């Protein structure tokens, strides 16, 4: 039993945090809002240079051959930075799917940074970053397809988050490359959904922490009644409550990464718990964040909006709260339930 990250994993996380801190500034994000693609090709190349795009690609295909546990801390950093480029979907969702389907050429292109891959969460769902990405992984009935984005018709659907780029996709399944169908297709769809929800959960965790930091900074500097408003208990307790929610969302997210990486039988339940807990933390961070920023929190000018809007967007992406609650409920209330003290790690052992 060792529920910790290794020193290497922590050091890698720290270096990625520093990189994103320097490269993904609020100014650079705002500048991207006004461009059609909303994305930065140079940054994508730099992420590939660091080995990030190919983190889960096997070494034979030019990647680092790491797993979901290695990446979950980095997905958290992508959230903290509100990174617009589709690193989490490409690495955490598309890569394992393509690996399973043996798409070596696409995997090699991911590792070099030549290609990004956008993923559809469920059949008919809007696809984030479909235009920036060279490939799309799409779904129809029980099959999963790989489609060149040039072969699909994309229509931009604007999001409240100016950093998001969502598209409705028209495409012809009969012309597309099948990655899996039948029972294997259904299993692959389920795996994709779990991976995507895990990625969203990790980002929400990072977003929550960033919103706490911004709120602490603002309330430490803003003076009223002759002192910083952050010295008042009413303000402190708002942020303390968010800190509690965030602190207790971390372990469920990391456990979900472990369960997915090891294909545990209750991975779906663990992912849904993680997504629910991280969503709760991040939406509370947004609500309390805007409150302690006062009127400034309601402006376009203050950077809180960048992270708040990403949190609102990801709260509903990769499964609504209702869907995730239903998945946990079926395990907790179902006839096979096995609950109580000592059962937490039963499926791992």
């Amino acid at each position, binding site marked *: 039993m060792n529920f910790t990250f290794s020193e290497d994993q922590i050091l890698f996380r720290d270096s990625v945090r520093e990189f994103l801190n320097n490269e993904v500034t609020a100014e650079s994000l705002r500048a991207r809002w006004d461009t059609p693609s909303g994305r930065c090709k140079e940054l994508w190349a730099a992420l590939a240079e660091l080995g990030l795009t190919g983190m889960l690609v096997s070494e034979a295909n030019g990647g680092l051959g790491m797993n979901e546990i290695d990446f979950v801390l980095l997905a958290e950093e992508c959230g903290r930075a509100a990174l617009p480029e589709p690193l989490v979907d490409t690495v955490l969702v598309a890569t394992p799917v393509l690996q399973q389907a043996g798409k070596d050429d696409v995997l090699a292109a991911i590792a070099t940074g030549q290609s990004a891959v956008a993923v559809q969460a469920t059949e008919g769902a809007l696809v984030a970053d479909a235009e920036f990405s060279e490939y799309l992984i799409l779904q129809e009935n029980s099959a999963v397809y790989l489609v060149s984005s040039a072969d699909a018709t994309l229509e931009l659907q604007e999001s409240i988050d100016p950093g998001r780029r969502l598209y409705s996709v028209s495409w012809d399944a009969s012309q597309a490359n099948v990655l899996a169908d039948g029972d294997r297709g259904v299993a692959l769809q389920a795996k994709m959904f779990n991976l995507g929800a895990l990625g969203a959960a990790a980002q929400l965790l990072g977003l929550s922490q960033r919103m706490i930091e911004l709120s602490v900074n603002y309330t430490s500097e803003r003076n009223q009644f002759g002192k910083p408003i952050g010295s008042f208990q009413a303000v402190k307790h708002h942020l303390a409550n968010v800190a509690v929610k965030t*602190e207790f969302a971390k372990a*469920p997210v990391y456990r979900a990464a472990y369960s997915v990486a090891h294909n545990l039988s209750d991975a779906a339940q663990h992912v849904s718990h993680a997504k629910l807990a991280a969503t709760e933390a991040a939406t509370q961070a947004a609500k309390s964040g805007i409150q302690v920023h006062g009127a400034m929190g309601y402006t376009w000018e203050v950077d809180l909006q960048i992270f708040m809007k990403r949190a609102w967007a990801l709260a509903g992406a990769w499964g609504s709260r209702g869907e995730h609650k239903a998945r946990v409920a079926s395990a907790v209330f179902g006839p096979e339930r096995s609950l109580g003290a*000592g059962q937490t790690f039963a499926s791992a052992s």
Partner: protein
Amino acid sequence: MDLKYTPQQQEFREEVRAWMQANVPSVPLKSFDTEEGFQQHREWEKTMNEGRWGMVTWPEEFGGRNLDLIQWLIFEEEYYRANAPTRVNQNGIFLLAPTLMEYGTEEQKARILPKMATGEEVWAQGWSEPNAGSDMAAMRSKAELEGEYFVINGQKTWSTRAVYADWLFGMFRTDPDSERHRGLTFILVPLDAEGITVRPIPQLDGLPGFAEIFFDNVRVHVSNRLGGDGEGWQVAMATAGFERGLMLRSPARFQETARRLVELYIENQESADQDPAIREAVLQAYMQAEAYALTTYQTACRLNQGGKIGPESSTNKIFWSELDQDMHATAMSILGARAELLPHASAAEGVGRWLDGFLFAQSGPIYAGTNEIQRNIIAERMLGMPRA
């Protein structure tokens, strides 16, 4: 990261389970807030000690097994699964003992720990005073050194277990000119010493679970000072740290409550589902108990590797105390008209335990540092917000 138990950990679990199955009393003990129940619980501590299960993390010389925190969590899981009695000496074994291990002299450890382990000496806490509750540094009870003895005068209150306990640990002002956190000394006091009056305070269930203690020229030998003169605050903070942390409220307790809540809901689902909020609350209870367990395992693994408990541990107290309140409130909602029945009412058969738990859960956000104080600590020490 590896979330599998080792074969040794699995074996240890089996060993605890077998012992608990063979030894946990089949008839629940009376409340330890009654004289009879207190003695029953003291006996249980003795039985535990005979099996060397009293405090598995302690060194072997004091009756422990020198085990690590993961094994401690496994022990607790089996303990609560077996529905074993609540630990009457929890102030001693969970709060004082870790402080003794860190600050006690060899003489003190050898004198105090073995008797604590057998339940021969049960401990009470002496922190709060009538004018020093959340503002603990305002305490004024004093201890003046006369030769080899402290002479203690003053008053403590809300002292849990003090009515039947044998010893008390607490802080007293040894420097009469000192203010606030300075000049306080951590002293261990035998409750049968001359000059001590213990006045029971009936708690919400009518039983004397805590007490006021009056000190009138009570003489205590200087060998009962824990840590240095005037260092009481630092020593006490270590105790409070453990209290908020892993020992006092391990996750197993809440996971078992969550499990029972799920079963209660399923047994009463038809009526419970008339209020959709109940199903949601039961689901949340399960997830939160699970989150508390996961987070605690994470902390325990970090500490096993030499890490330290940080200010984020202040989030624990808020999390478990509010979870406990929510779970019991949900149970009361499910029970409807049966909820108000005292446990011994025949019509409460099988569900009376929920009311006891509900009452006790009301104290959770208050004892061991109110949740408001915890929120201040989180804001100031964990988040770095400006002090008031």
